[in-house]
């Protein structure tokens, strides 16, 4: 990767996002200094004002593409990065701000801003992989810190990271939880949602709300009868799928069938 003896150069980039996924790295209090010792931090604005020119061995990219400038900047980041890893729901699926993709963004601008002409934004919020090739996508809103360490550690060791593509149900069973959908009639997206969080929501007696996005073979249609049986009507099901990974297939198409108009319910 790098010159013999040199540490791999890491960069952390931000696009449209809440900063939560890069904060996940700073929140690894027990491991942060060890990671920092093992890499050369070339660019990480949240943590340091020092900046080293690329190329970078590994770039972690947070956030989605929402402005004309973002479209240009992600090309530069890709060109300067040997390995590019997207972190989080914004970077891998457009994030919560992807809700604009179903609506009229001009109307959104007018709701929030008194002078819409000042605002320069795209009509869509899209994933990084929609614009440049991505080497690995780490899901979650936010990503899971242990997964992030696994990926960084694997890259440092020169091996393939182990990241499951199964559903939350697998983790939920491993955690020994009672199924909240079957036992308590609580709406749960666990069967169609990507693993990675450790089945947190069912462990806290609530249903999974899909913040890790669709699992690899996610089939939201197969879950619909179970959700209907616990009292969710079509529009509730549509909104359930349309949150932090709304633009990720198959959540996108399954929600659109149920909410043909913008994400709002019918009047």
């Amino acid at each position, binding site marked *: 990767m790098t010159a013999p003896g040199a540490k791999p150069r890491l960069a952390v980039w931000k696009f449209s996002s809440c900063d939560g996924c890069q904060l996940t790295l700073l929140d690894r209090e027990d491991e942060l200094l060890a990671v920092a010792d093992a890499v050369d931090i070339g660019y990480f604005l949240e*943590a340091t004002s*020092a900046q080293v020119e690329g190329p970078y061995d590994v770039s972690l990219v947070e956030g989605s593409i929402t402005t004309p400038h973002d479209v240009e900047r992600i090309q530069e980041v890709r060109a300067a990065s040997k390995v590019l890893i997207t972190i989080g729901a914004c970077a891998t699926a457009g994030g919560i701000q992807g809700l604009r993709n179903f609506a009229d963004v001009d109307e959104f601008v007018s709701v929030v801003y008194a002078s819409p002409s000042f605002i320069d934004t795209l009509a869509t919020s899209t994933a990084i992989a929609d614009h440049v090739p991505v080497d690995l996508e780490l899901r979650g809103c936010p990503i899971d810190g242990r997964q992030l360490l696994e990926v960084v550690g694997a890259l440092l060791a020169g091996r393939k990271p182990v990241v499951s593509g199964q559903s939350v149900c697998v983790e939920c069973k491993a955690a020994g939880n009672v199924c909240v959908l079957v036992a308590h009639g609580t709406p749960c997206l666990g069967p169609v949602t990507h693993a990675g969080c450790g089945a947190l929501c069912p462990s806290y007696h609530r249903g999974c709300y899909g913040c890790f996005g669709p699992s690899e073979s996610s089939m939201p249609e197969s879950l619909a009868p179970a959700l209907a049986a616990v009292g969710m009507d079509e529009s509730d099901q549509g909104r359930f799928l349309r949150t932090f990974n709304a633009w990720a297939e198959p959540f996108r198409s399954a929600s659109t069938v149920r909410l043909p108009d913008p994400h709002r319910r019918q009047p």
Partner: protein
Amino acid sequence: MSDDTTRTIKVEALARVEGEGAMHVEIRDGALVGVELQIYEPPRFFEAFLRGRRHTEPPDITARICGICPVAYQMSACEAIEDACGVVVDGPLRALRRLLYCGEWIESHTLHVYMLHAPDFLGYHGAIEMAADHRERVEQGLALKKVGNQIVEVLGGRAIHPLNVRVGGFYRVPTRRELQPVLDGLLRVREIAEGTVRWVGAFDMPDLTYDHELVALSRPDEYAVVGGNVVSSSGLDIPVSAFLDEFAEEHVARSNALHAYRSDGTRYLVGPMARFALGYDRLSESARAAAVEVGVGPDDRNPFRSIVVRAVEVLHAVDEAIGLIEAYEPPDQPAVPVEPRAGVGHGVSEAPRGLLYHRYTLDDEGFITDAVIVPPTSQNQPSIEADLFRLVEQNLDLDDDALRHVCEQSIRNHDPCISCATHFLDLTVDRG
């Protein structure tokens, strides 16, 4: 570019703040003409897409406005919706909300003090560089921050975007046994929290005074975080429901963040300096004693001393969290029922960076028809610019690098949460 009458300084991006923005300083013939804080982090339209969602959804959705202070968004959202539905959450559930908020104050303030702001005073690019010379100190900061995160994790399910918060309370409340390791952790880091006040209290800082009007939440019985009235240093004392009568947001061309002003057009400041000045006598005894020891008092108006005030607030939050856990009796129910009804609700809580206001309008089925969110950094933007203006004016003779550094530091005094306000800092000094 520089010649005899023109100097231009550019910083591609301000580091160690949350989010992205720029600053422009204009100097003509040696005189300062204007300072603009430009927030160009792309808008994310939360207020727009909250419309049409159920009254149960804002705690999860608004948490995503900020990875650093999601609890603040969840608490203000819950307060506002409960207000609209005529429900008051009190007793042990309110105590748990305060405990959760203490966790966020500890993790967010400690992140700012150790990783974002202290490097300015000690001459490092960041905490990781600082760790090369001050490893033990940085490790202590990380240990303190970890306990803050631990509170949010146990109570909220995870430190970033907690999932256990709902309108009316929680999905599951912790057992006393689950809180015991948190209490042990707090007792372990209490000394670090005290040491942090002494450490930052000894930093060299410019001797400056600013006369911002200070605005914070206030309660007679506690250092206010959730619930109470909105008060100010000029004597304002209003219920939360009157917030938008007294404060107004305006949209300026240079910024994707709205700027908030008093309704008479004057600027004001929210955040730790405001809370400290207006709630000094309700700090924990040891937090107050620590403040006295390092010579910071309720009349302090030097924004560079905000790092000291943050450290004092961390100690207060540690003390309060210890008290809350020791007194904790699990409630019978994890949440009170909140039946939707048509109406308007207002909610305010004290995010680490300052007062955070939410207003929701619900229809009779509980669907949101309108949402207004006023984050602390929007409110502080005019005051941050005012600070910069005076600071640049007083330091025109500094060379570009030194001037840039002092400006960046001044911005970081306010710990701006730029994604919250919508937002990237790129400093340009134009001396043309």
